[in-house]
């Protein structure tokens, strides 16, 4: 465990070194939120509701979505892992007595800790000033459920893109698959629009996929639009377990195809 903690520490420090990178990333998220704010303000200008959402609900939804986006999604796992396999850099990792999966997991986890720290400070500040406007009711159950679901969201996102990354063993280059999953995930997890506003057939399809547990479910728990039930935790946990086993299996099979060019 000590060696993985060292990986985590290194990753945290690397994020500190490239602070400008993080600053620009954060700024881009802030701008995305600003644009969504203007879009919805303009739509609600005519008055009324969109589905069961009033303007404040919508803004609150996107605030939560951006927070999860920064914490759980602010990294390009597939791109990095895919490149290591494609360029043969995986050879060096395979020769060390450290498990590749856990090494990568803790390496990205360090970045997540760094982003969580900054994002939480801003999120809590925003919440403090806006809670009354959004009619937000603080409750320990709600906050702890939300935090646990954000953690599961991180795991789901990480595992999905880890699998995309190691599919380089078969595809040779995964930029297209990575982009494809990013685009689909962003829509089906509720990053663009709350899922309960989408057509019912799309939601029906989404029920068989893990994406909605990345943004929509955690945010809806936080905003109080979904009730806390066991299934809300069990289903994503089963997905995490399934994806973990799938990742392990694919890596094992993929290694047999790996030729280690360029390493």
């Amino acid at each position: 465990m000590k060696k993985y903690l060292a990986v985590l520490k290194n990753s945290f420090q690397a994020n500190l070194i490239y602070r400008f990178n993080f600053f620009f990333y954060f700024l881009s998220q802030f701008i995305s939120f600003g644009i969504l704010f203007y879009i919805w303000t303009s739509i609600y200008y005519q008055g009324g509701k969109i589905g069961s959402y009033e303007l404040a609900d919508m803004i609150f939804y996107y605030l939560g979505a951006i927070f999860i986006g920064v914490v759980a999604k602010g990294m390009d796992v597939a791109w990095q892992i895919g490149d290591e396999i494609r360029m043969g850099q995986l050879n060096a990792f395979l020769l060390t007595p450290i498990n590749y999966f856990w090494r990568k997991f803790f390496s990205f986890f360090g970045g997540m800790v760094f982003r969580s720290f900054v994002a939480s400070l801003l999120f809590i500040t925003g919440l403090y000033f806006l809670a009354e406007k959004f009619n937000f009711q603080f409750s320990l159950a709600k906050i702890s459920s939300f935090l646990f679901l954000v953690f599961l969201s991180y795991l789901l996102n990480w595992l999905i893109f880890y699998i995309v990354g190691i599919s380089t063993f078969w595809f040779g280059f995964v930029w297209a698959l990575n982009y494809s999953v990013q685009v689909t995930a962003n829509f089906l997890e509720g990053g663009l629009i709350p899922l309960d506003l989408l057509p019912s057939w799309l939601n029906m399809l989404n029920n068989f996929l893990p994406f909605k547990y990345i943004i929509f479910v955690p945010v809806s728990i936080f905003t109080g639009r979904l009730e806390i039930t066991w299934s809300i935790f069990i289903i994503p946990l089963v997905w995490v377990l399934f994806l973990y086993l799938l990742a392990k299996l694919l890596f094992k099979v993929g290694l047999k195809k790996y030729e280690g060019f360029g390493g």
Partner: protein
Amino acid sequence: MKVLAAKTKKYWRVFLLLQHVGLMNRMAYRINFFIAFFAVLSNMVFTIIFLRVIFGFVNNFSGWGYYQALVVAATFMIIDGLLWVLCSYLGSISNHIKNGSFDRFLVSPIDSQFFISFWRGDSEDSVRIITGMALLFYAIGHLSLGGEVLLFGKLFLYLILLFNGFLIAYSIFLFLRTFSFWFIDVNSLSGLGNSLFNAAKYPATIFRHKITRIIIFSVLPLAFLATVPAKILTYGFDWILVASSFLVAGIFLWMSRRFWLWGIKKYTSASG
């Protein structure tokens, strides 16, 4: 004049060659090419679903009807597609600066800005242009834009303004990327650029506050990317907007060029 013609011919040939190499490079990973093709198509479909959901609840989006909003979205898709197909490599400037491989762009007997801008293109993104055009004609079909001659005139002007929009978008991306000469690892700048750029996907009239309206029309003239061409096409001629489009495109192209030339002076070649 003869020298200029020869130079233009040379640059045109280099451009075609780079596009050809780019296509070959992409086709080397054929499965990826087709996956990307469908991913881009899905992205377009999601944008349309988003607009449909909005117009399922309201019949007016900041002064724009459904089909007019589709014209804005289609215009954005075309400009976005042109940027990806022609100069997607702009995004990797910081990587080249970081590992010193930017040298190759400076030592070649060709303008460095031209070379890096058109070095590689993502040919599969041509689907953005195709989908955008299909969407544009679909939307136009549902709008009454006048007789054939008037429609032809409007479309002609629209295409010119669309080109101006492309130049402005290119200049903004180049401007942002040039910061890499100072900050080295600024990969997040592409994310920042994309976030800003995405604002152009929607009618600029959504920015109701005076200050944001000024920003969107001058400091960061995203309004000229898709909203202005779409407005001229759907609402008719407005000489102030047309003249401003040319002026803004010219100023931004000139400024980004100056900034680029300043930036390359700061390049120190890390390893090469």
